[in-house]
């Protein structure tokens, strides 16, 4: 309290002095000043023994003191008369002091010299400083005890400060004199500006305590405390605090109180809201006090720098400073407008603003459009000059919004403009790129914290500060301090710490560099061609264009190829996803980039980082459909047949409707890869003997397609999917020059197989039909057809057959047999047949089958009559049969035809074969069957079982065929095979022999059957075989089947129909045994045929 009063008194006095007696000022004042300082000294002396602040602080203070003296002397030299007076005063005192000093210090002058080595201070000064404070006789102590030494230093400090204060006062006094008569303001005078380092805190200065405070309430607290101090002033409880500090953002949650005693702080802070003095306070160490007050100058706002809107419609938008107004408080900026031209139709309504604020959508950024503005709000649009418009209260210049904005509404730091944003400002008025890298760099500099621009190993260069010019290698990065090992110059080998600021990466021309984050050119790689300051221009490896970026965004690209991301992650011809709708095939891999061919056929070069995903190789059975409706799969050889250049090649990838095809002929830029739509392709060679491609060439069968109600779909040849079953089988050759030799099937097409012979080291190509397959279990030799035909079903059939026989017989019925036959056919081979051969036929076939099945007695009729009638009629008619038969004949031809067709239908063979097969399979049955009727025929026809089967089948088929087959095939088939032969069963057989056995057999069978069969034949056998299958397959399908079947006629006519109808049947069918595969295949083929 007393202090305060004193202070007030002093000030009053002083002011009075200022007014009146200028001349006398200095001295009285000095005297006043001296007194307190002496007092202080005394106090200090009392405290001497206590341990004091660190040595560092001391020495610093001391040196300060020394410098201070120097400077002040300098100042004094410049000063006028008054000054000299002062000097005189000093001089007056000086000698006295010095004298005493010398006396006192002689013994340890050396010591002092050592301590002060670095400070170039005159001994005299030192002595002077120490002068008054060392009592004679203390010397020994001082020498002996460190404490004593300390004391000396402190005294020195104090002395310095006292002197300094004195000098300041002196200077102030001068000033006062100079501006005599004025009210004394204490603005900094040129002569009084003391360097900061002379002001560093000492132990004499009050302490500063940090106190917790509610964050955000710091300012309020400061004001409240100030108010309290003022309120209490003059009372008994006056507060003894000196100042209260708040640092806002940088020290949130704290206020700092400057006071001499902690108790004063507590006292002052009691009952101050939002300040938590009781939760403890922290004494700020003396050497940290300057940091507390450190003020960082913010990046200067210059025209061209980028800022961001903090709020409002443009919140977050980037803006560029055009001009700085009002001493930096208002910025004239330009930004890309967000105008909703159509928004407000009525003129100005005060609520409009509020509405807009609430409004959900803010208009996109778009340059101002005069046209649109005129269109919607012509009234609001005025044009002052060319290119400058005022629209709804805002000014637009060159398309940009130009506006004066208060600095507080803008975000000036960490703006971190993105390049895409910046580029919106780049193409201004004059049209060419005026991207101001300088401005950009300024905006970016502050925001280095986003990522660590420096990494150990980087070569860096210091370009500002004391260590400018140092070049070194980064060894460590901590916060924003880089430790670097100097590589050049006198400090070579030393480690120094440098802040980010003032550091830049160093590159040499010719360096291979890669762009790191923070730039639009991220991941670009290239060779440095030019370096200007911290801007590096390099020639991109990708675009071969020059790119200029900041060196901070660059890194040296590793030259080891292994590091390249491109090489590691992707392989040539990988399929990659570029975006949701685009895929591409890699056609070239560079060290840092990929060249790809996208699905549209465009090649582009991309960075690995632009690859959204790698598409794993599809399962090999990914299927697409070619122009002919055939499946095409990866690794098939295809040819472009439409829209293309007749290129052909092997499919590498199928993706949706696109195939990436590798052509050996087509080299060049794409590395032989081209893209085609799958529906422009035709299969040339299917991988792995899969039946390739082409269904019947529809163009060659005009009749068929023309026939309206027509019947038949082109025979559909069941096909098996996937890998040819025979591959890998051990086979023996049954015909031809290699007859009798064993071998392993290495590969197969639809008609031929490549056999690696056991005996001769040779691989031969041979027709499949000439092969014999050894059945694992029995050791029996099976023909190809038998082999391919699934076996299980057969077993069943055979089993059941007998019983059927009986059943049939009971069922009796000529109708029956008729039905049977077809049934039979349908069931097995027939099943195929019908299905395969013709929809209608299939239907028909089934029907009969059905009839048969059901029919053991009654159904047939019902059925037949019901739906099929016609067909059936025929069938039944099988009895009736002539026509039918004919049909059957037909059918034969058909078969034949189908055989015949083999050539073009790849599948057919299979399917045909299948025909045969089923039969063959039934071969098991066959016996049973054969016994019945056919056998004989067959016998003649061909090798036992199969043939018979076939025959039978054929028989069965025949009918079926006849139904539908009549239709189309004929033409063809006729041409090919003598359907006539069909009639002549025997003859046929004879003829056919060469044909696959099954074949011939069938025919005869058919023919023979139909005619002869009727009675006994069909009756017995069919029942047998038929039932079983039916039972299995049919029953299920039947329901559906029949109905559909009913359509047979129709379906027969129309391929599609056929499909429809049969499909179910087929399905059922397949389930029956006839292997699902078949059924499926049929379906598959169907489309092809269509």
């Amino acid at each position: 309290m007393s202090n305060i009063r004193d202070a007030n008194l002093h000030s009053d006095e002083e002011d009075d002095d200022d007014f009146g007696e200028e001349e006398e000022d200095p001295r009285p004042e000095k005297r006043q000043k001296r007194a307190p300082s002496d007092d202080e000294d005394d106090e200090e002396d009392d405290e001497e023994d206590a341990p004091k602040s660190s040595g560092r602080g001391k020495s610093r203070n001391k040196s300060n003191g020394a410098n201070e003296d120097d400077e002040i002397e300098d100042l004094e030299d410049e000063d006028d008369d008054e000054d000299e007076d002062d000097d005189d005063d000093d001089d007056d005192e000086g000698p006295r002091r010095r004298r005493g000093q010398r006396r006192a210090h002689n013994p340890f002058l050396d010591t002092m010299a050592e301590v002060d080595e670095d400070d170039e201070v005159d001994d005299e000064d030192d002595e002077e400083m120490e002068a008054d404070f060392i009592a004679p006789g203390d010397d020994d102590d001082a020498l002996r005890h460190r404490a004593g030494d300390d004391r000396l230093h402190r005294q020195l400090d104090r002395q310095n400060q006292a002197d300094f204060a004195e000098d300041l006062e002196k200077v102030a006094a001068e000033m006062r004199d100079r501006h005599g008569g004025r009210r004394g303001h204490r603005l900094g005078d040129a002569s009084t500006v003391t360097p900061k380092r002379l002001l560093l805190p000492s132990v004499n200065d009050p302490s500063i305590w940090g106190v917790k405070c509610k964050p955000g309430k710091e300012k309020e607290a400061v004001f409240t405390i100030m108010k309290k101090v003022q309120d209490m002033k003059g009372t008994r409880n006056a507060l003894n605090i000196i100042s209260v500090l708040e640092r806002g953002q940088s020290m949130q949650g704290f206020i700092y109180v400057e006071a001499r005693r902690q108790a004063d702080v507590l006292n002052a802070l009691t009952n101050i809201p939002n300040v938590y003095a009781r939760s403890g306070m922290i004494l700020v160490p003396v050497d940290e006090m300057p940091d507390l007050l450190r003020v960082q100058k913010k990046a200067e706002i210059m025209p061209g720098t980028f800022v961001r809107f903090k709020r409002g419609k443009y919140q977050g938008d980037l803006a560029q400073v055009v001009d700085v107004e009002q001493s930096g408080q208002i910025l004239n900026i330009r930004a890309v407008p967000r105008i909703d031209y159509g928004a407000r139709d009525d003129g100005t309504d005060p609520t409009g603003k509020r509405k807009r604020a609430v409004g959900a959508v803010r208009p996109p950024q778009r340059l101002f459009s005069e046209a649109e503005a005129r269109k919607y709000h012509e009234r609001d649009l005025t044009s002052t000059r060319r290119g400058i418009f005022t629209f709804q209260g805002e000014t637009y210049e060159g398309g940009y919004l130009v506006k004066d904005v208060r600095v507080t509404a803008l975000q000036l730091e960490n703006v971190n403009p993105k390049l895409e944003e910046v580029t919106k400002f780049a193409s201004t008025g004059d049209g060419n790129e005026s991207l101001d890298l300088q401005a950009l760099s300024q905006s970016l500099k502050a925001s280095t914290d986003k990522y660590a621009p420096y990494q150990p190993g980087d070569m860096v260069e210091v370009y500002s500060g004391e260590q400018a010019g140092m070049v070194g290698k980064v060894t460590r990065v901590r916060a924003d301090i880089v430790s670097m090992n100097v590589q050049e110059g006198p400090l070579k080998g030393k480690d120094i710490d440098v802040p980010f600021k003032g550091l830049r990466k160093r590159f040499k021309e010719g360096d291979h560099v890669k762009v790191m984050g923070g730039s639009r050119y991220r991941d670009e790689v290239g060779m440095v061609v030019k370096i200007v300051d911290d801007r590096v221009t390099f020639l991109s490896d990708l675009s071969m264009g020059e790119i200029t970026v900041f060196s901070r965004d660059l890194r040296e690209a590793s030259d080891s190829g292994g590091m390249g991301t491109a090489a590691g992650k992707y392989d040539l011809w990988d399929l990659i996803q570029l975006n949701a709708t685009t895929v591409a095939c890699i056609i070239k891999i560079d060290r840092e980039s990929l060249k790809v061919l996208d699905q549209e056929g465009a090649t582009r070069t991309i960075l690995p980082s632009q690859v959204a995903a790698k598409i794993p190789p599809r399962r090999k059975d990914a299927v697409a459909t070619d122009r002919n409706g055939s499946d095409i799969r990866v690794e098939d050889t295809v040819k472009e047949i439409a829209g293309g250049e007749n290129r052909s090649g092997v499919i590498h990838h199928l993706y949706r409707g696109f195939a990436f095809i590798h052509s050996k002929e087509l080299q060049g830029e794409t590395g032989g890869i081209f893209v085609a739509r799958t529906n422009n392709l035709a299969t040339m060679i299917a991988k792995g003997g899969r039946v390739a491609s082409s269904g019947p060439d529809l163009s060659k069968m005009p009749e068929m397609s023309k026939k309206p109600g027509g019947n038949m779909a082109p025979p559909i040849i069941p096909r098996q999917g996937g890998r040819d079953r025979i591959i890998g089988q051990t086979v023996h050759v049954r015909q031809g020059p290699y007859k009798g030799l064993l071998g392993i099937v290495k590969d197969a097409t639809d008609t031929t197989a490549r056999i690696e012979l056991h005996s001769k080291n040779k691989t031969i190509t041979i027709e499949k039909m000439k092969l014999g397959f050894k059945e694992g279990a029995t050791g029996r030799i099976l023909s190809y057809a038998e082999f391919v035909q699934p076996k299980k079903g057969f077993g069943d059939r055979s089993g059941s057959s007998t019983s059927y026989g009986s059943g049939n017989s009971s069922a009796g019925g000529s109708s029956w047999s008729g039905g049977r036959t077809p049934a039979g056919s349908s069931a097995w081979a027939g099943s195929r047949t019908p299905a395969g051969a013709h929809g209608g036929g299939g239907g028909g076939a089934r029907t009969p089958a059905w009839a048969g099945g059901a029919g053991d007695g009654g159904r047939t009729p019902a059925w037949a009559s019901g739906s099929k009638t016609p067909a059936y009629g025929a069938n039944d008619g099988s009895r009736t049969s002539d026509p039918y038969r004919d049909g059957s004949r037909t059918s034969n031809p058909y078969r034949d035809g189908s055989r015949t067709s083999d050539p073009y239908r790849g599948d057919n063979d299979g399917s045909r074969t299948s025909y045969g097969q089923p039969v063959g399979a039934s071969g098991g049955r066959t016996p049973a069957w054969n016994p019945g009727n056919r056998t004989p025929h067959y016998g003649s026809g061909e090798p036992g079982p199969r043939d018979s089967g076939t025959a039978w089948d054929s028989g069965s088929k025949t009918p079926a065929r006849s139904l539908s087959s009549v239709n189309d095939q004929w033409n063809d088939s006729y041409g090919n095979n003598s359907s006539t032969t069909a009639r002549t069963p025997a003859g046929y057989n004879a003829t056919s022999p060469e044909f696959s056995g099954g074949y011939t057999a069938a025919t005869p069978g058919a023919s023979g059957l139909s005619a002869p069969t009727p009675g006994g034949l069909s009756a017995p056998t069919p029942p047998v075989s038929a039932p079983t299958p039916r039972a299995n397959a049919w029953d299920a399908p039947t329901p559906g089947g029949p109905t559909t079947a009913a359509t047979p006629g129709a379906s027969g006519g129309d391929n599609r129909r056929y499909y429809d109808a049969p499909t179910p049947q087929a399905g059922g069918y397949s389930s029956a045994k006839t292997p699902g595969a078949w059924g499926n295949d049929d379906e598959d083929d169907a489309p092809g045929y269509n």
Partner: protein
Amino acid sequence: MSSANPDYKWRPVPTNHFRYLRACMVCAVVLTLDEFTRKGCPNCHPVLDYTTGSDLAQMCTSPIYEGCISIDKPTESWIAKWLRLDKYVPGVYATKVVGDLPEDAMDYLNAENIEYIPRDGSENNLE
């Protein structure tokens, strides 16, 4: 030392007037604009007269400042000394004032041979 203007008495500022607070770019004292224009800056007054009704007050004070220090005993305070506020009146000061003093204000100061100490933090760089 003493205050420049003995008549000056610091007045509390209600919280809701904080937003009118501005800092003098020359001496960093924080007052409401109203106070500046009515009474002038307690430290700079005669040199820079804010009371004339010109926009000098606007130009030489800034609403953008950082850090508030209420200084009760400027002469004793190390903080005041450090910030060179030790010869100013007790009151609330800012550690940093953002803004550039207009040219004419500079001229006034120069005419009085007063060196202007920028309060915007740039001084640190001189160290």
